[in-house]
């Protein structure tokens, strides 16, 4: 008796559920995509979570322990324009893409260069910043040399093994001697010591190193090698987010705000007293 009553109850519930489900399945694909977009979650939660990894001057901690930097300005402006709170999630650099894919945060704004390999796993918006490699030279050793003079066998370049500058130097200055090191700071150290004529690094590092050691180092040329764009990283399969962020970035370029902020953080050192540089 109890058994058949239970069966009846189950049958009724099943029919009701299917009945309600039918109109839901008729929901169109476009609505489905929109509701799955990260823009929707941001609106619902009222917060945008931005993943970043500390790297001067993209993002860093000031003396108060707060986050400041170019990315922070970009992220806060973005959140203000979206009308939501902003949460920054500091993440180790080599785990930042997996963290985005797992959903730890909504977007990567961390000075991430657009590369074809990264693009296989995540999508990139249009670039919001550009950078490239510039030559950092020992002032006294390279006084009065032109760009072609650097491509001679007597000239020594220093670079880190396996990093992009090494490949770029080999390509653009094939006649010069290339010294390879295992360490990051070693190549700059060699130029400082006078053991190498020059090295290459991504701007703004050469400008800042030259600024710190004005008697020994200089950035002789404005040429940027291997120019790259930095863009927001978003999860794949989210056209709404791409559209929103692309338009936002385009607007910030048009108004000149992005360029002004970029100059402030990368070309000047006015913020240096906020951080213990």
């Amino acid at each position: 008796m109890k058994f058949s009553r239970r069966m009846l109850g189950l049958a009724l519930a099943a029919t009701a559920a299917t009945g309600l489900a039918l109109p839901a399945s008729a929901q169109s694909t476009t609505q489905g995509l929109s509701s799955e977009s990260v823009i929707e979650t941001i609106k619902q939660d009222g917060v945008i979570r931005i993943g970043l990894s500390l790297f001067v001057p993209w993002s860093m901690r000031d003396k108060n322990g707060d986050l400041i930097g170019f990315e922070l300005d970009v992220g806060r402006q973005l959140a203000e324009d979206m009308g939501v709170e902003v949460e920054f999630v500091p993440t180790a650099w080599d785990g930042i893409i997996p963290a985005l894919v797992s959903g730890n945060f909504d977007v990567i704004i961390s000075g991430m260069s657009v590369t074809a390999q990264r693009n296989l796993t995540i999508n990139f918006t249009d670039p919001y910043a550009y950078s490239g490699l510039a030559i950092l030279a020992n002032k006294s050793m390279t006084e009065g040399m032109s760009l072609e003079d650097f491509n001679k066998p007597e000239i020594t370049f220093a670079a880190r093994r396996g990093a992009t500058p090494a490949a770029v130097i080999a390509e653009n200055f094939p006649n010069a001697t290339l010294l390879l090191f295992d360490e990051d700071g070693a190549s700059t150290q060699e130029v400082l010591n006078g053991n190498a004529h020059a090295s290459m690094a991504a701007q703004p590092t050469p400008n800042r190193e030259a600024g710190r050691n004005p008697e020994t180092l200089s950035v002789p040329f404005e040429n940027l090698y291997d120019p790259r764009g930095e863009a927001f990283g978003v999860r794949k399969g989210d056209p709404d987010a791409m559209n929103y962020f692309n338009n936002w970035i385009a607007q910030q370029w048009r108004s000149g705000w992005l360029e002004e902020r970029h100059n402030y953080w990368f070309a000047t050192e006015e913020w240096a007293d906020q951080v213990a540089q």
Partner: protein
Amino acid sequence: MDVSRISGVKGAPLPKPPAIQRFFDSVPVSVAIYVIVVGLIVYGSFTGAQNMGYNWQWYRIPQYLYSFTDDGFQWGEIMIGLVATLQLSVTAFALATALGLLVALLRLSGLIVGSAVAVGFLELIRNIPLLVLLYLFYYVLGPIFGFDRYTASILTLAVFHAALISEILRAGINAVPRGQWEAAKSIGMTQFQTYRYIVLPQSVRFMLPPMTGEVVHLIKSSAIVSVIAVAELTTIGRNIISDTYMSFEIWFTVAAVYMAVTLILSAGVSYLERRYSVDQ
């Protein structure tokens, strides 16, 4: 063990547990249930990961272990990483033993400054995490002494394990009976001669089991040097993951390789221990 046989007390035997419980307690059934449970866990995590949208790509793993190219059989990246790990571990272990011996002898020597330095070293190293020690060696002492990352890793591992090894050595030396020391003194040996001919050879027997445990420990600690990108097994694993995003497959393969190495080592050590065990 039958109680009645010992004390001569007779009574009704304890009731045997019901047949069904005996069935489940038997060895083959227990093992079967164990295999089923483990299988369920593996299967559950498999499908769970797939439901999260993870795309299992086990078919890509073998190329990292070995490959057949035109030149013939070649070991894959993971195996090369394993060799690098073993090389790193052996070098670090040799250095750690030498340093540990020095520290142990200093402590036992009774020298004021000597034992103070040894104790200070031990307390310092034992209370700092390995990762912080690695950063100290690489970022602080590296620029000062000009270490590259490989040297910094070996030194860190050696110093960290020297602290542990020195305690093993000291305990081993102390385990040699005092009578040996006194006998050596009575025939006129100096302390140095006593150590070299009498005490140290005998203490080896006491030190061997914990020392082999320390070798396994060091192989495990060596994984930490991947944070400064030294070429070894964990580093290669992380590099492959950052290129291919096969996190689960690679991590499990790497874990399996480490397990295989440590289990083989432990088994080999037990075999040696049993073969060379000395009757007291």
